[in-house]
């Protein structure tokens, strides 16, 4: 049961684990800002008209913006879905019972 011990070990040092995770997150952000190169030239990435094409071109140049996309996207999914659910879609468990 070494696995249980490992999980226990990590749970007992939750603060340290959180610090390490935050440091990792920061490292990825720094990496994204300073070291990652765009895959395509701006003109090629944003070829075509429209807002989305431009957005694609911008995010190609600034990959760190994907962090914003992930965070906001996740919040939108949580809140929009819950609002949808509470608008009458979620109901009691015995709804379909006779």
């Amino acid at each position: 049961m070494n696995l249980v011990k490992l999980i226990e070990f990590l749970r007992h040092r939750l603060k340290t684990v959180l610090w390490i995770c935050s440091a990792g997150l920061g490292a990825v952000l720094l990496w994204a800002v300073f070291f990652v190169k765009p895959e395509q030239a701006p003109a090629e990435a944003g070829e075509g008209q429209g807002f989305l094409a431009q957005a694609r071109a911008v995010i190609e140049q600034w990959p760190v913006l994907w962090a914003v996309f992930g965070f906001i996207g996740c919040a939108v999914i949580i809140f929009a879905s819950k609002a949808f659910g509470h608008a009458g879609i979620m109901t009691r468990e015995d709804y379909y019972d006779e």
Partner: protein
Amino acid sequence: MNNFWLHPSLILLAGALLLPLVPAAVKKGYLLLIPVLLFVRILSMGQGDFGHVNFLDWELRFGRVDQLSSVFGFIMGLMCIIGTLYGLHVKEDAQHAASWVYVGGSIGAIYAGDFITLFLFWELMAFSSVFLVWFRRRPQSLSAGYRYLLVHVAGGLALLAGMVLNFKATGSWAFDAKNLAVAHPTPAVYLVMVGFILNAAVPPFHAWLPDAYGEATFNGSVFLCAFTTKTAVYALCRGLPGMEILVPLGVIMALYGVVYAVLENDSRRLLAYHIISQVGYMVAAAGLGTQMAINGACAHAFAHILYKGLLFMGCGSVLYMTGESKFTELGGLWRKMPWTFVFTLIGGLSISAFPLFSGFVSKSMIVTAGFEERKYWVGFLLMLASVGTFLHTGLKVPYFIWFGKNRPKKATEDRAAEPPWNMMAAMAVAAFFCIFIGCYTPFLYKLLPYQEEAQKYLPYTGYHVTETLLILLFTAVCFFIFVKKLEPEAKISLDLDWFYRKGGRAFAWLARKPIQAADAFVGELYRVAGLVPLMITARLASLFDNEVIDGAVDGVASAVRGVGRRLRLAQRAQVQESLTFVFVTAAVLIVLFVFFAHK
């Protein structure tokens, strides 16, 4: 048949037939042997067109083995081994037989070269898979199974109608993109599409999937999640690549599954909604139809079968051991089922497309194909859906089952333990492949249909890895910030099955109330307007019969009797005298006749 060619499905069908005859002592060996034989047969098949059979005026093609069918055949054969290993300890032969016939149907559809063969195996799949739901033997499973069957029969009929109409138009049963005019689809092509997308669970034809997969047996769901939808993805890639309408449908699917997964309290139904979401990527890819997109659809189907099977095995193990699958009834199981947690987490990281896991090397192909086609909205919305995927399958499922603040009932907690060795082994094999595919891309990429495109594609670029890491890590940050908001609620969510579940009830009410009332009314009307006058007429007729006819008959009879009585008095029993009287009367009459006749 031109030459003998052993159809891989035959191995499973024969294996299923012989299963009850196998002695218990060697049953487990036999259960593993048949799927292994199937896999070996699939690997040993050379490419070409085999198994031609003449039927009526047509030639059926049972074995079209090419790069596209081979990649699906390969993964389905592998999954058959993993799925059977997972349920190896199940004593009931019929469950194994149903699974094998189902896989046989799926593989038959994959290798079918014409519509008739495709339809045959397509229906075999539907009718065998329903048993995987029914074998759970709860009253709910029975109803869910019937609903599953109802929807699939409707889909099968759409496919049948479409293929027959298409045959009338083109004169060919060939099951390929050339025979289905995708650029200018006819109503027949749309009907075929409806048949396919119903099996792919594309909204609005999707509600059967969470309904049935959440209700199937613990190992039945492992098979179900792998075969039906992926056979449909194959059918779309084969028959309808580049059909424009599939792109928006696929994107809607990808997001639809994510939204419902937020609301879901049952872990297996949550995973089922994520099948819809993930198959959405593949449907959109089939709609894009480029070489990169079709490669992406195949690669993602391949990876999906493994990681979704692994996730269903993880949650199935929890269900098998504790009897619970709802988040509100589970929590804190990490002490009791740590390895199941690790395997499920690997499945979760794979479906979320974490670097070094299988989803990363497959999903990104589809997103890239969307951006390359300048369909930016497709790319962005699919990226958004992948945020939702990690949120639920990578975070919500492991967190609320193995950690979380919820505490299960004591009885549930006491029952919890690691599942039997075979279930653990099956999860370990699937987990191995999830990581292996993610780390060693040539294994999967060499199987893809468009080799040139596949070899060119590099998933592990600095930009791509960073992009994915940032999205997923910040999704995780958001999850832990709003984790309270995501606390499971003991509720169900209404989906489009509401229409036929309530519709069925409305029909039953209609039959019970208005139709029965109308029937009673017609009965009463018949009684009043028909039966009552009939009775009066009958009574009158009987009166007439009694009084008039019987009177006349009785009168005649009594008259005859009266005459007879009088005649009897004249009878004196003297024969000679009577004869004399007769002869004399006759002689008198003759004389009178002669006299008057000659006068």
